[in-house]
């Protein structure tokens, strides 16, 4: 019960509707190097609160790299070096005073390939709340798990087999389990790295609906190769090309009236 009110309280604390959508995360001049190779050449991008921002672009353009900067997953790669400013609610996330573990709890991530832990469905979802101490006692944990699975649209399918291994689910269910796992720690931002690329069309449609629902409570950044998907689920779209961000704007505008020639070429399928 307490955990539920926590989730509720956080949702209430955010600006509702307002005039201009608030900026949740901000990137200014972000450069990433893998050894001597430069993967990102100075990215400026605002991620707006409770909107879906899609990052599109051809393979190797740096969109996943950028995504991984937003929760400092690049820290785990020895040869990666990040320059520039990146903020969450106005606070520099690469600042010394920032605890990277806490940051990743606030900025959750869903990966390209569903990667549930080889544990039960219940343990998959409860792991995050457990290590962050978000639920006191078993009843509360049960509630967090149920709520997270409900939000991920998986509850009805798995409520009778919570003790079965998460790896026994189908691909689409596994990905929704991973989303439930990310939601369970009450993040503010959810990063999704091509979450549907390993799924069939029906499972994809499921996830897309889910993303649309999650937008009410979470800020979402999604990397996708599928332009229809970007058009369907996002409010803002950023086009990346060769380590640069070519163009960013409202999704509708990017897809109907792109300013840059390269963007136009990519979305009309001339390359990519």
């Amino acid at each position, binding site marked *: 019960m307490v955990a539920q009110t926590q989730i509720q309280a956080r949702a209430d604390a955010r600006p509702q509707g307002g005039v201009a959508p608030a900026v949740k995360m901000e990137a200014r001049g972000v450069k990433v190097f893998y050894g001597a190779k430069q993967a990102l050449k100075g990215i400026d991008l605002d991620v707006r609160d409770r909107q879906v921002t899609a990052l599109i672009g051809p393979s190797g353009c740096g969109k996943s790299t950028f995504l991984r900067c937003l929760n400092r*997953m690049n820290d*785990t790669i020895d040869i990666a070096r990040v320059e520039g400013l990146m903020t969450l609610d106005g606070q520099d996330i690469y600042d010394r005073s920032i605890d990277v*573990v806490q940051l*990743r709890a606030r900025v959750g*991530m869903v990966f390209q390939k569903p990667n549930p*832990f*080889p*544990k039960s469905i219940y343990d998959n979802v409860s*792991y995050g709340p457990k*290590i962050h101490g978000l639920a006191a006692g078993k009843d509360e944990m049960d509630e967090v798990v149920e709520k997270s699975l409900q939000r991920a649209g998986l509850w009805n399918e798995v409520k009778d087999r919570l003790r079965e291994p998460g790896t026994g689910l189908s691909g689409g269910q596994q990905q929704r389990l991973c989303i439930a796992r990310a939601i369970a720690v009450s993040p503010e931002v959810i990063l999704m790295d091509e979450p549907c690329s390993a799924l069939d069309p029906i499972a994809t449609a499921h996830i897309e609906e889910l993303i649309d629902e999650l937008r009410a409570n979470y800020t979402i950044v999604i990397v996708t190769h599928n332009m229809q998907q970007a058009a369907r689920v996002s409010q803002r779209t950023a086009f990346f090309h060769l380590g640069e961000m070519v163009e960013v704007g409202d999704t509708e505008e990017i897809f109907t009236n792109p300013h840059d020639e390269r963007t136009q070429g990519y979305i009309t399928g001339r390359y990519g």
Partner: protein
Amino acid sequence: MTDAVVSDRAVPVYQTAEFERRLRRRYAAEKRFRLYGIAAIGLALGMLAVLLGSVVAKGYTAFWQHELRLEVFFDPAEIDPQGTRDPAVLAQANYNTLARNALQSVLTDAGSRDARRAAGDLLSVGAAFELGRMVMDDPSLIGTRRVVSLPVSDEVDQLLKGNVSRALPEADRQITDRQLAWIEQLEAKGDLVSRFNTRLFTNGDSREPELAGLKAGLLGSMLTLFVTLVLAVPVGIAAAVYLEEFAPKNRLTDLIEVNINNLAAVPSIVFGLLGLAVFLNFFGMPRSAPLVGGVVLALLVLPTIIIAGRASLKAVPPSIREAALGIGASRLQVVTHHVLPLAMPGIMTGVIIGMAHALGETAPLLMIGMVAFIVDAPSGFTDAATMLPVQIFMWADSPERAFTERTSAAIMVLLGFLIAMNALAVILRKRFERRW
């Protein structure tokens, strides 16, 4: 000319004789390869069967030992003439005489002094000790007559087991014709019985084969391996985890990795020399002690455990690490909650290979004084001790005929120990195993 080429091409390429020949060659090559594989496995299994077969065939008789059932009169005049029942007096008494008196009464022509001695030689030296122990345990035996089972000497035992032929001329065997006649007399009466040789497990080493047992070696091996396990497993796993999960990848860690791999190939006697120089000479630790043996063997198996540990940590899919990091687990939590449990089966395999290696190791123990004649089983980590392989080595070196079968029996016990250890590891591994 052109027509011919065109018509050639019209024949489907994959049905020409050339292609069929190629297909046949491919099938033959595959079949040959399978045969090589089966032959290799057959050869390996055959060798193993020959090895085990010869060990078992030679050694199984050592698990039985002949005993002589004899009615002994616990003569008070011989044991305790004053009737004090003082343990010191009882311990001093000459129990050989009791045995010889008993033998004299059942054997023909055993009255003379040298006949009594020859008859007494049928029994093991240990027979008198066993009579003494009976009296010490229960002094009320004094003055009574009891039928007791006493071990026969190793020469008699070997003769009865058929390892020494009775048809040999007297000069070529250790049993005299007179003794042989007595043995046949006792056999006819049914007083020579074959019993399970418990002394093989309850006694320490002895110069007398019929009394020699493996208890000291078994206990020594257990104590030493315990020290090895306690030292090598935590250190090995910690080193593997640090190197694989936390250490920066740079020149220094590369150098460490190369050195660990090289260390695994260092001859084991070098570790023994190290133990002698460092632990005995520098730190002044006790000679022949399981503590020192365990430390030396731990050093010996550390590289194996580290290498196997790193390999199985590396085999954990990176997606699991990312998943845990992505919901805000610290690096330590990632390792202890996810990576280590998943790598555990592989690490256990490394540990068991290492421990099996340690169990069979002899050379390094040579340098730290564990190649020793140990009668009393060690009761602590600093007592003088030996290990099973060393015991086997020493028995194999003994001249008595009876030690031949005991050497093989000791090998069987060592293999049994090894199998028990492996079985335990397999059970533990099954418990840790998870699918993903």
